[in-house]
């Protein structure tokens, strides 16, 4: 029983990471209709920035979290402005190629500077245990951090003028222009929020695993699976889909085989889409 509960906790923690990455993707998809495949690589940049700021720069972990989120928010806006905005209105394939180009560029750049995998120390290197369950504090940080950020994002979107403008652009772009919303500004804002979330996920996860130039690759594929399962563009769907995938994956690792853990996400995708072709939720709500 406690083994099962331990796996559930690991599943929630994996799911937390997936949700934080998938939320950004679904927001960007909802508002710009683009599949931002380079999102996982910006996550990777977030992890390396943490290494630079915390390990090389000696900055406190929590301060480093804010620095990484702010810096990656700026990087996200830059990517929107320099890579995606010039391609707006052109065929999807152009955006796709641009994203692949960005992925190759980022990965090559990082590998050129630091080819070895690195590790980041845990800010609180302890393990809690109660009732036969034992849990590293860092896993708790991932879980609670994700809950706080997801709640903050929901409040931002539902309760603020700018957040509602993001929904408005996603629901009717022309209508949004006509009420005076600058679609360019909202696109930049969406990229900033999405990339800051990915950076937070990277900062939370980095102490639990090695960081490497290719760490964003598998993650982005799974995040896309979640976005599709959740209903393209749906926020609720990305949250539900992310936790479901994390749990299933953790249980599959424990009870089936860890060798196939990455295949598992795609099996889930195929099954869910066979049953509900539009995903769990309707998009863009």
């Amino acid at each position, binding site marked *: 029983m406690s083994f099962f509960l331990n796996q559930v906790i690991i599943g929630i923690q994996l799911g937390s990471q997936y949700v934080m990455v998938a939320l950004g993707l679904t927001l960007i998809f909802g508002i710009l209709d683009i599949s931002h495949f380079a999102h996982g690589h910006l996550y990777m940049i977030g992890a390396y920035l943490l290494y630079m700021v915390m390990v090389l720069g000696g900055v406190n972990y929590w301060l480093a979290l804010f620095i990484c989120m702010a810096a990656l928010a700026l990087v996200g806006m830059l990517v929107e402005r320099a890579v995606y905005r010039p391609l707006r209105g052109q065929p999807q394939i152009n955006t796709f190629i641009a994203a692949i180009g960005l992925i190759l560029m980022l990965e090559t750049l990082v590998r050129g500077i630091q080819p070895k995998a690195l590790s980041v120390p845990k800010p609180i290197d302890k393990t809690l245990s109660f009732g036969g369950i034992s849990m590293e504090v860092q896993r708790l940080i991932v879980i609670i951090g994700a809950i706080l950020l997801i709640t903050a994002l929901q409040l931002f979107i539902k309760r603020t003028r700018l957040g509602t*403008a993001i929904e408005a652009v996603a*629901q*009717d772009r022309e209508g949004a222009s*006509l009420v005076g919303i600058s679609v360019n500004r909202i696109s930049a804002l969406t990229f900033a929020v999405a990339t800051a979330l990915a950076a937070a996920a990277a900062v939370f996860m980095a102490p639990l695993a090695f960081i490497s130039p290719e760490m964003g690759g598998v993650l982005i594929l799974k995040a896309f699976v979640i976005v599709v399962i959740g209903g393209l563009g749906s926020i609720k769907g990305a949250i539900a889909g992310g936790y479901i995938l994390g749990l299933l994956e953790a249980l599959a690792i424990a009870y089936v085989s860890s060798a196939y853990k990455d295949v598992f996400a795609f099996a889930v995708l195929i099954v869910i889409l066979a049953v509900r072709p539009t995903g769990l939720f309707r998009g863009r709500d």
Partner: protein
Amino acid sequence: MLELNDVHSSIGKHEILGGVSLRIEEGELVCLLGANGAGKSTLFKTIAGLIRPWRGEISFEGEVISRKSPDRIVRRGISLCPEGRKLFPRLSVRKNLMMGAYTRYRDKKEVAETLREVYDLFPILEERSEQDAGTLSGGEQQMLAIGRALMCRPRLLLLDEPSLGLAPLVVKKIMETIEDINRRGVTVFLSEQNAGMALAISVRGYVLENGRMVLEGKASELAGNEEVKKAYIGA
């Protein structure tokens, strides 16, 4: 107040407006008649900044606006209630209206006043304020679209076929409200295919055909014109 001078607009490679000129004075209610495909919506979108004219000039209150972005034009005081309404279907009625006041977030009190005025104009919107816009009936959606366009306190309101697809009784109510809005000091430019009601409430009118203005005159003169009668009143 609004002046167009030889405006040419294209969608893709197709030229839709081939040199449109017109003039609207402050306080007027002017209608734009034209068959389906004449270019009415294109003309309104061009004024609102959604389409850039490639030749000609549009000026509003003496300032050239033909190269400004839609959000800047809204801030200058022109609001378009578009054909097809372009509401935010999964936002509540209230949030749709508040988005209409997006450019005015600094004066919260005045926005609340405008919201009150819009609710007084269309009481049904207040009843349905927490409902998603997408769940409203066609007539209610049109009222919401007009209400949303008023939330930015425009000095010039562009209404693109507000009666399209609505039952005659609802059309009558909407036309009365448009007159009311105009009486409160908002200049209105209204496009319609069915000229009867539009001419009845307007002072002047223009007739657009294939992207060119072919007629212009007082509403009463246009209503008596044989060609207009044949083409747009169906008499």
